[in-house]
C-alpha cells in the first residue's frame, strides 16, 4: 500500500480547530432539537443492504457494501430517515413520535464543490403526524437550524409533489409523457416542455412551474387554473403552511417553487430544499414521506428534514463567519512544579491551558506557542515566583 497517508476518495479528516467548530455546530443543533421535544437516537451505521434497495429508495451503486460473517449483504448508513423509520416501525409506539439524529452518512458517487462521500447530517423526523401544522413545524425547525448555525443568508424553496400528480390527471398525460415532463421540470428545461404536444393552456401551466417563484402570488396564479382536486388540495395545503410560517416571521426566507417535484417514490406531499451562498448544493432537504413506512408493513404518516453540517461548515468558512482557534489559550512552562501548580489554578478558573511536559527553554516555549497559535505564554522560574 503506497497510500498510507491518504484518505479514500470522497473522505477527509477534520483538522484540529475545524473539528471543534463542527462539534460546536452539532451541539447547537442538538440543543435546538431537544428544545422542540425531539429525542435523539443513534442507529448503528451499518444496515442490511435490502433496507435501502428493496423498495428502490436508493440506487444500489450509491451504497458502500460489504458482507457480514454469514455472507449477508450489508451497507453503510446512507441517510437518517430510512433507518429511523425502520427503528420506529419495529416498535410499539404511541404516535406522534419526535426523533432526531446527528450522524455520518456515506454515499458513493459524484463529489466535489464541498460535497463529500462521507458527511454529517443533523435531522428530525415527526412520525405519525399529518397535516399542515406538522409540515410547518418541521419547516420552522429547519429554518431555525440554519439560523442557529449562523447561516442567515437563507432561501427555502417549498414544493408539493401532489400538484404535478394532479396535473398529470388533469392534462391526461401518459406515464411516458409525464416522466419526460417531470424530468424537464426538474431541470427547469422549458425547451422540452415547449416541444410536447399539449394545449396552449396546459403548456403555459407547465412552463410557469419551471419559472415562477414567490409566496402567496404563486399559489393565487395557479389556483384558478387547476381543476383536479388533488392539485387544488396541494395548493390549499401550501397556503396553510405559509399562514403558519408567517406567524413565526419566517416568510422572508421562503419561496414557493412548484417546479420542485423530487423523486416520486419517496416524497408524497410537501417537499423543500434550503440554499445559502458559496456552496453549489442545497444544504437542507426535507419533506413528507407517508409511504416509506409501507416498506416495513406499517402506515405511519411522516415528515422530516436534514441539514448537512459538512456543507454548512464549508459555507460558514467561505462566508467568513467562522474563526478557528486551538483548544488552549495559555501554555505554561519553566520550573515543572511551579508550572503545574499554575496550570491547575488556570484550569480551575475555566481557562484552557497546556502544561509543558518536555522542559522547553523560554525561547523554545515562545516559538512553540507561536507555531501552535497559542495566545499567552507563561514561563515560570522555580522558587523566585
Amino acid at each position, binding site marked *: 500500500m503506497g497510500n498510507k497517508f491518504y484518505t479514500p476518495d470522497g473522505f477527509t479528516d477534520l483538522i484540529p480547530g475545524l473539528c471543534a467548530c463542527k462539534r460546536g455546530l452539532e451541539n447547537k443543533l442538538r440543543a435546538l432539537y431537544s428544545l422542540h421535544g425531539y429525542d435523539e437516537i443513534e442507529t448503528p451505521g451499518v444496515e442490511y443492504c435490502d433496507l435501502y434497495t428493496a423498495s428502490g429508495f436508493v440506487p444500489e451503486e450509491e451504497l458502500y457494501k460489504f458482507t457480514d460473517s454469514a455472507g449477508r449483504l450489508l451497507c453503510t448508513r446512507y441517510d437518517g430517515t430510512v433507518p429511523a423509520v425502520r427503528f420506529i416501525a419495529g416498535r410499539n409506539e404511541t404516535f406522534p413520535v419526535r426523533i432526531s439524529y446527528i450522524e455520518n452518512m456515506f454515499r458513493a458517487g459524484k463529489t466535489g464543490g464541498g460535497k463529500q462521500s462521507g458527511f454529517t447530517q443533523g435531522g428530525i423526523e415527526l412520525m405519525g403526524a399529518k397535516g399542515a401544522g406538522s409540515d410547518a413545524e418541521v419547516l420552522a425547525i429547519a429554518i431555525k437550524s440554519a439560523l442557529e448555525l449562523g447561516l442567515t443568508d437563507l432561501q427555502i424553496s417549498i414544493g408539493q409533489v401532489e400538484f404535478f400528480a394532479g396535473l398529470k390527471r388533469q392534462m391526461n398525460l401518459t406515464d411516458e409523457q409525464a416522466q419526460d415532463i417531470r424530468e424537464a421540470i426538474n431541470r427547469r428545461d422549458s425547451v422540452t416542455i415547449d416541444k410536447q404536444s399539449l394545449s396552449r393552456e396546459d403548456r403555459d401551466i407547465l412552463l410557469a412551474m419551471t419559472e415562477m417563484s414567490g409566496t402567496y402570488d404563486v399559489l393565487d396564479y395557479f389556483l384558478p387554473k387547476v381543476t383536479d382536486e388533488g392539485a387544488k388540495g396541494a395548493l390549499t395545503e401550501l397556503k396553510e403552511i405559509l399562514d403558519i410560517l408567517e406567524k413565526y416571521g419566517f416568510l422572508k426566507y421562503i419561496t414557493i417553487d412548484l417546479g420542485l417535484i423530487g423523486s416520486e417514490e419517496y416524497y408524497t406531499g410537501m417537499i423543500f430544499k434550503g440554499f445559502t451562498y*458559496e456552496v453549489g448544493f442545497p444544504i437542507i432537504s426535507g419533506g413528507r414521506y407517508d409511504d416509506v413506512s409501507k416498506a416495513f408493513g406499517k402506515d405511519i404518516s411522516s415528515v422530516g428534514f436534514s441539514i448537512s453540517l459538512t456543507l454548512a461548515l464549508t459555507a460558514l468558512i467561505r462566508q467568513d463567519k467562522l474563526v478557528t482557534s486551538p483548544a488552549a489559550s495559555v501554555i505554561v512552562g519553566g520550573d515543572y512544579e511551579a508550572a503545574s501548580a499554575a496550570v491547575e489554578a488556570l484550569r480551575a478558573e475555566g481557562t484552557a491551558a497546556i502544561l509543558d511536559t518536555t522542559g522547553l527553554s523560554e525561547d523554545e516555549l515562545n516559538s512553540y506557542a507561536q507555531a501552535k497559535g497559542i495566545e499567552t505564554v507563561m514561563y515560570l522560574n522555580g522558587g523566585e515566583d
Partner: protein
Amino acid sequence: MLTIALSKGRLAEQTLDLMEKAGYDVSAAREKSRKLILEDGKSGLRFILAKPADVPTYVELGAADIGVVGKDTLLEEGRQLYEVIDLGFGKCRMCVAGPAALKDKLDDIPNKRVGTKYPNITRNYFEGVKKESVEIIKLNGSVELAPLTGLAEVIVDIVESGRTLYENGLEVLETVADISARVVVNRVSMKMKEDEIKPMISKLRQALSEGEANT
C-alpha cells in the same frame, strides 16, 4: 456579481454577440489576451473561459453561476443543472454512423463495437433506448477511423453537415439526439441570485426571438 462560464471557441463568440444584443456590456470578455478570467466591475459580470466539457462542472459545483455549453456535453456529463434556454446555434445531431451497407441492418449485428468520444451518451442510447449491450471503445478524435480500420462496426458522434462521413464512405444510420447550445444555471444561484439571473434569462430570450424574427 454573476460568473458566466463560456465554452472556448466559436460558441463563446456567438454567446457574447447575443449578450450584447440583449443589452449587456461584454467588452471585458472581448479583450484579446491570454487571461482566463475576464471581469467587468461596471456590468457586474465575470467571464471564465473553460474547455467545453468542463463548463457543466464549473456550473454544477457553483464556481460559475451560469454556463453556455452544447447539449452534447450536457448529455455526456449528466450533471445536475437547470437547463433554461435553447440558444439555437451550434446546431447539429448526435448520430450512430457506419458503412452505408449497414443501413437498416444495425439491429442484426449482435454485441456491436462502438467507437465514440461520448461513452455515456452511447451507453444510455444503446442500453436505455435500444435495450441492447454494446462494447464501447472510447476514442479522443477522428472517430471516423474506427469503422474504416475495423476497430469498431459503428461510431456515435456529432454530425453537422455529414461531409466528413460522406468523404470517408460512411453514413448516418440513426439519430440519437438533436444538439444545440444551451444556457445552464447552477441550482443554488437560481435561488440566491434570482434578481440578477431571471432578468438575464428573459433578456436573452427576447434577443433570441428578435434575432429569429429578423432572419
